[in-house]
């Protein structure tokens, strides 16, 4: 109980610092995922449109996913140096697989009869993609986005080891200073962030599902 009050008072006293770290944390995640969307969605589309590429693209993304996060970030650091960019690039790589895979699966899951209807009424392949396939695969894409976001929020906590910021900084500071309170003050917001992202994106996903059912 005493510990709880101590923790709360610590957080209350350092709220501006913690908020800043949270925002840093979010910023890295958002950049990473936006980049992953920008690259992953087209790759997913390529996989769906051309089955030959699907195994190559998906297994490459899979291999990246398998590399332990600390290892991946460290290797990236060797090439990109310390700092924000390296972290963002790492998060981008980690978010790729769920986004590519779900884009691919989502496009594949679209009822073939709807594609036939669209093609038969004279839609061009691009119109078919933008008016039918992508809108209908949005719930899947959203699910991929959600998984990517949760993973990225988690991975971002090790950012300080390669010169990044975010809530990990508080945790690392706690480890170095053997301060239980500091560790919790970093870990709890990070966990909450992940839960919140999961919840909000989950709601959005459900909504999209209703719209496309």
């Amino acid at each position: 109980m005493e510990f709880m009050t101590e923790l709360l008072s610590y957080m209350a006293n350092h709220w501006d610092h913690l908020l800043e770290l949270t925002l840093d944390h979010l910023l890295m995640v958002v950049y990473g995922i936006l980049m992953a969307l920008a690259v992953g969605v087209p790759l997913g589309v390529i996989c769906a449109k051309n089955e030959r590429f699907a195994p190559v693209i998906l297994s490459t993304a899979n291999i990246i996913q398998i590399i332990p996060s600390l290892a991946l970030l460290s290797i990236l650091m060797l090439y990109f140096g310390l700092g924000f960019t390296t972290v963002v690039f790492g998060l981008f790589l980690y978010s790729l697989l769920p986004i590519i895979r779900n884009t691919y699966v989502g496009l594949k899951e679209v009822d073939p009869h709807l594609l036939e209807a669209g093609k038969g009424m004279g839609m061009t392949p691009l119109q078919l993609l933008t008016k039918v396939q992508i809108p209908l695969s949005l719930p899947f894409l959203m699910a991929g986005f959600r998984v990517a976001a949760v993973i990225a929020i988690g991975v971002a906590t090790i950012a300080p080891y390669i010169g990044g910021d975010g809530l990990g900084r508080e945790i690392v500071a706690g480890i170095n200073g053997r301060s239980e309170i500091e560790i919790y003050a970093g870990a709890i917001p990070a966990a909450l962030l992940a839960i919140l992202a999961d919840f909000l994106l989950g709601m959005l996903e459900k909504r999209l599902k209703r719209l496309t059912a």
Partner: protein
Amino acid sequence: MIRLEGVQKVYEDGFKALKNINIEFKRGEISVLIGPSGCGKTTTMKLLNRLIEHTEGKVLIDGKDISTIDPIDLRRSIGYVIQHIGLFPHMSIKENVAAVPKLLKWDTERIEKRVTELLNMVGLDPDTYKDRRPSELSGGQQQRVGVIRALAAEPSIILMDEPFSALDPISREQLQDELVRLQKEIQKTIIFVTHDMDEAIKIADQIILMKDGEVVQQGTPVQILQNPANEFVEEFIGKERLQKYRSMPTVEEFMEKRSAIVSPDMPLPKAMKQMEEHHLDTMIVVDGYRQVKGQLSIFQMFNNNDANKLVVDVMKPVKYRVQTGTPLEDALTLMSQHDVHALPVIDKKLGCLGLITKNRMIEGMARIYSMPRKEGA
């Protein structure tokens, strides 16, 4: 008008889906492609909007070879209704109906007007339904929308691929009726694929029956039902249906038998008495070997009213005769062509069985046409 000339479809693996198809779909008619699965009916239909490309021959729409038309433009000018309804679930009813006009870049006002008009046409209140999603409609309502979506951009040709097969029997009947009613208004060239013979009989102006990539028989429903080309057609139509529709009787069902037959050596007064008794105006003269010798009409008898004469003295030769199994319709045609009132009916051994007269024919026809039949058939 759409014409297929020597069309073949051979797939890369060598499978011949269509073998030398030559057919015509007439403007403003419902042509039904029917046959067992794998017969090529859907393939034939999909050639028309180039969802499938033929490998040999020509497909002409109003004389123009469709392989010279851009497939996208071609498809936008042809309505298409698919079996699985295929309404886009993420779009409202209005957006679904407006899909092709939007592709054609109609202005919003024109689209709005057209959607309202079309929804009214199939009895869906625009204010109630236009903003709903397909999932909020019943299957029958959804396919109504599917049909008007195909009509939206005012194409003159509409392809329908088993459009009502996924519906429950009641909705299916309703939509068939509606299609027949609608067609009277819109007069489109409709190519309709089905495997349901009852559906084909109900809606078709022309039925094209296919098997193994070939056309087996082509004609109006009545023609096909009355004269199935071969055993396969009979089997496909089904015995029960054939009996029902084959009820167009043949001559022997209505012929006068013994009552109209006299022997050549019968005295005239006796023959006249027999004529009176059976209310006939013509009789057939048959010898002991069942050979037709001549005919005797009431006029000949009045002109030769001589009690001493025999039938053989006044009878006239018979020019025309019909075989057993001849439909009444054909006998009637023969009669009016040659201006005769009666025809002897002979069996395959050329023996005379009786006489079919115009009066009996009229009775027969009356029976047929008092039966409930498809309108316009």
